[in-house]
């Protein structure tokens, strides 16, 4: 069989070629390049860099992390130089007494990548252009709040606001993203800024576009020669000469790529994938040195109830359902124990332990529920320790022993499962039990459909499956439904009973809660059938809540009262249980130290390593080439 010989020849020739080509990023020096996962995957419209238009191209392709900049950044962790960073602004925002005017001073000596200087005109242009084109992302926000914007001089911008707004600067403050500043000299030449692709992008960040895949699978950025003329230079020189943001495929492929040292930062993968990396790749590290490895993002996954669907408008029912959940099992099922649990309505991340969890612990311990038949204290402060003990036999030394460490990594307490109290609460709400099945007050079976995101968010889907199982074991006809596409639009349309999702997101580093809480005011509530604007996805309203929100609106962002009012909200949310808080959104970001070192970690929490956050730009100045050391 001559064919076979020929085939064998080609096969071996190809194998040789294969090893010669070996891992690499083609003609770029690997030791000067960092390869990062872009969780957006493949970009549908690769040559679109106009980040000011809605959902057109990629934004976490490196564009918003390395190419863009705006006035301020708040770090979700401790920050490279404190939580607050004046980025393009030279100082904090200055409001007048009644919060109707905000003045911003800008930095000197910042240049766009094409050599044009950044001035106040760019900021004014950014605001005015988007107000003229409300289909641009921040247009509607500016339209709603800005009366006029002017630049009295090259370094000053004055915003006159339509109504008092003590949080207006938040629009220009990066938490994941914010309103990015546009290059006036580029966009003013364009006829219609909504149809302009901005390719190649003129950047104000420390990198500029090197090349990208016309099929949207990768983007490569190159350090600007004049990186000193960007705002990041205050913190040092960015390490990597090139940064590639790639679509590495599904979770298992990401793990394989990092095992082969072809992917320096994994954005997220499955807990099992992380355990594999920890076992097989000594160079891979997570946020925590040991368990749970993942970075807790300041987002609070929870069981969301639709308060406009009976019986979920009844706090007794909501509390009963909460008391049926065994968080230990949920933590095991979802994150294999690598979750950071939270009993209260803020995520247990960043500096929130200090701001909220520690001060509230005693109140929680003494918190009492009255089921009508009995009173008891549902808070079990030892749940975090219990999870740690449960994991210790199989995970050994990776599990922290110091109670403080456990509280930080695995969480503090949660509600103790109590089927008896749940029974009493349900009976008070008019429910009855017939055989194994609970019936609603109207005599029909109590069934619950829990919406989950399926493939889009495997870990949350696993948590939902576990919760539903616990409800089912209690005699509630519960089931999950996977809905991988347009999950949040559907939740916001009110077309759900319960869902695993989130409506609480915070700054992480800063105690102010208005980021999510302001939108929970009853003035924004929509009747059932109409779309609820984010983020009051549970459509919960309460007169006391409105009062808290209104008070926050009148005080300064940095006022110490912010924390006090935040605690008021938390207490209210514990009593009412509008959502069942579960845990922080732990992102399994894994970093390979083969080529780069100096990544942020729980021991050195100078910024969030989760690479789609625009805040990760601070990571670049700390990254050092491993080979050079």
């Amino acid at each position: 069989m001559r064919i076979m010989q020929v085939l064998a020849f080609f096969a071996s020739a190809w194998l040789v070629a294969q090893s010669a080509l070996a891992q690499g990023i083609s003609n770029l020096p690997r030791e000067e390049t960092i390869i990062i996962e872009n969780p957006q995957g493949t970009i549908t419209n690769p040559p679109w860099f106009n980040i000011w238009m809605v959902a057109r191209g990629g934004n976490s392709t490196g564009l918003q992390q390395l190419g863009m900049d705006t006035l301020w950044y708040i770090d979700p962790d401790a920050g490279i130089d404190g939580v607050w960073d004046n980025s393009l602004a030279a100082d904090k925002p200055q409001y007048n007494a009644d919060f109707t005017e905000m003045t911003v001073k800008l930095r000197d000596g910042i240049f766009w990548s094409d050599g044009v200087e950044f001035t106040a005109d760019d900021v004014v242009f950014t605001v005015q252009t988007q107000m003229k084109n409300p289909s641009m992302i921040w247009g509607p926000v500016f339209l709603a709040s800005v009366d006029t914007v002017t630049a009295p001089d090259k370094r000053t911008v004055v915003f006159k606001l339509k109504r008092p707004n003590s949080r207006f600067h938040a629009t220009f403050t990066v938490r994941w993203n914010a309103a990015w500043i546009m290059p006036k000299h580029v966009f003013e030449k364009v006829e219609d800024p909504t149809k302009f692709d901005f390719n190649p992008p003129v950047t104000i960040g420390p990198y500029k576009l090197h090349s990208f895949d016309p099929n949207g699978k990768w983007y490569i950025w190159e350090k600007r020669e004049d990186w000193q003329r960007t705002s990041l230079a205050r913190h040092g020189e960015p390490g990597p000469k090139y940064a590639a943001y790639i679509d590495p495929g599904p979770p298992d492929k990401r793990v394989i790529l990092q095992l082969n040292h072809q992917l320096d930062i994994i954005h997220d993968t499955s807990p099992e994938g992380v355990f594999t990396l920890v076992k097989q790749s000594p160079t891979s590290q997570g946020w925590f040195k040991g368990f749970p490895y993942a970075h807790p993002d300041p987002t609070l996954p929870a069981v969301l109830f639709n308060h406009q669907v009976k019986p979920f408008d009844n706090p007794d029912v909501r509390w009963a359902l909460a008391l049926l959940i065994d968080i230990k099992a949920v933590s095991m099922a979802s994150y294999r124990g690598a979750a950071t649990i939270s009993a209260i309505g803020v995520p247990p991340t960043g500096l929130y332990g200090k701001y909220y969890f520690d001060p509230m612990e005693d109140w929680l311990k003494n918190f009492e529920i009255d089921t009508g038949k009995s009173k008891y204290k549902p808070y079990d402060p030892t749940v975090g320790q219990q999870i740690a003990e449960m994991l210790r036999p199989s995970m050994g030394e990776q599990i922290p022993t110091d109670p403080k460490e456990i509280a930080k990594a695995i969480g503090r307490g949660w509600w103790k499962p109590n089927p008896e109290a749940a029974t009493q609460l349900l009976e008070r709400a008019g429910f009855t039990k017939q055989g194994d099945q609970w019936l609603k007050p109207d005599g029909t079976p109590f069934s619950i459909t829990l919406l989950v995101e399926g493939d889009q968010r495997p870990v949350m889907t696993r948590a939902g499956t576990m919760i539903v199982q616990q409800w089912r074991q209690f005699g509630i006809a519960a089931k999950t439904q996977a809905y991988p596409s347009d999950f949040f639009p559907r939740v916001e349309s009110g077309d759900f009973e319960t869902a695993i999702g989130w409506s609480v997101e915070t700054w992480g580093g800063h105690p102010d809660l208005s980021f999510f809480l302001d939108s929970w005011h009853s003035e924004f509530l929509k009747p059932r059938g109409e779309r609820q604007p984010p983020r009051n996805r549970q459509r919960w309203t309460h007169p006391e809540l409105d009062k808290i929100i209104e008070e926050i609106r009148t005080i300064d962002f940095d006022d110490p009262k912010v924390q006090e009012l935040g605690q008021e909200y938390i207490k209210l949310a514990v009593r009412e249980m509008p959502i069942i808080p579960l845990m922080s959104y732990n992102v399994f970001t894994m970093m390979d130290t083969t080529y780069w070192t100096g990544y942020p970690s729980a021991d050195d929490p100078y910024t969030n390593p989760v690479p789609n956050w625009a805040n990760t730009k601070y990571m670049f100045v700390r990254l050092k080439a491993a080979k050079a050391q």
Partner: protein
Amino acid sequence: MRTYALYLVRRFAQFILVVFIGINIAYLITHLTPVDPVEQAISSVTMFGQSSPEMVEVMRKTLRELYGLEGSAWEQYVSFWRRMATGDFGPSLSAFPTPVSTLIWQALPWTLGLLVSSTLIAWIVGNFLGGLAGYYRKNSLLKALGILAMSLQPIPYYIVAFILLVVFGFLWPVLPISGGAEMNIDRQGFAFAASIVKHSILPALSLVLVGLGAWFIGMRSLVSNIVTEDYVTYAELGGVDRRRILFSYVMRNALSPQLTGLALSLGAIFNGAIITEFVFGYPGMGTLLVRAVNAGDYSLVLGITSVSIIAVASAILVIDIIYPLLDPRVARS
């Protein structure tokens, strides 16, 4: 000849009708889906960053106007066909204002390249080996191949692809398991071509393995039927070279039904594209379609579906037109 012309006209009218109905069904289904591109766009904005409730209202209204979603269902339907008539699928909604056709043109070469070449390879190899197996029925190697083909044939594509992925991507990681070509490679020249070939080995192999069996078995049974015909026996008795008998007499006659099948499977390649591209992270129409569906971008979904409907219908049309010319018996009936 007049009957053939009449046949052509009738057949062409049927083609138009089938395409029309097909695209209409696709239109109906895409417009019944509750996924709303405007809401998708908004949630991509509010998912991570700030969102004030007022902002969402304004954005919703302007996007609706921008996307041209205003107007009654009937008006939208009419304007859809008006644009279709000129070959214009309109702008994509998830990649607005990029035209759908631009996105399809970007993806099409990858899908076509991968699927056409692997379908052809499977066809050629399958028929060649199948022909041999039908003719030399005693050869034990060919018998073994037959068993192998039999056992591969019924296994669904996903399973085969998945096994290949696990074996060559994980257990013995020698082949790239995602992407169409290496990153940042010079898109001209030999290295680029080599890289494309390298990246297409696994997906192509999976397609060939799955496709091969059917051709092999089909050709084998066709040939073993023809071999018993008188003219083959005469040729053998007459001392004609056996190789010549196989290729000029037997295989050639067996080829026409297999050609029909080839045209059909070439037309249907878009079906296979989705799952192949999903498993191997390959760029192309399938990936594009899944992303379009997830984004509720029905202009894009409709564009892709229409292209594939037209492709299959044209393939069948071409066969039906050529068939009578190859086989006059059909033309007469």
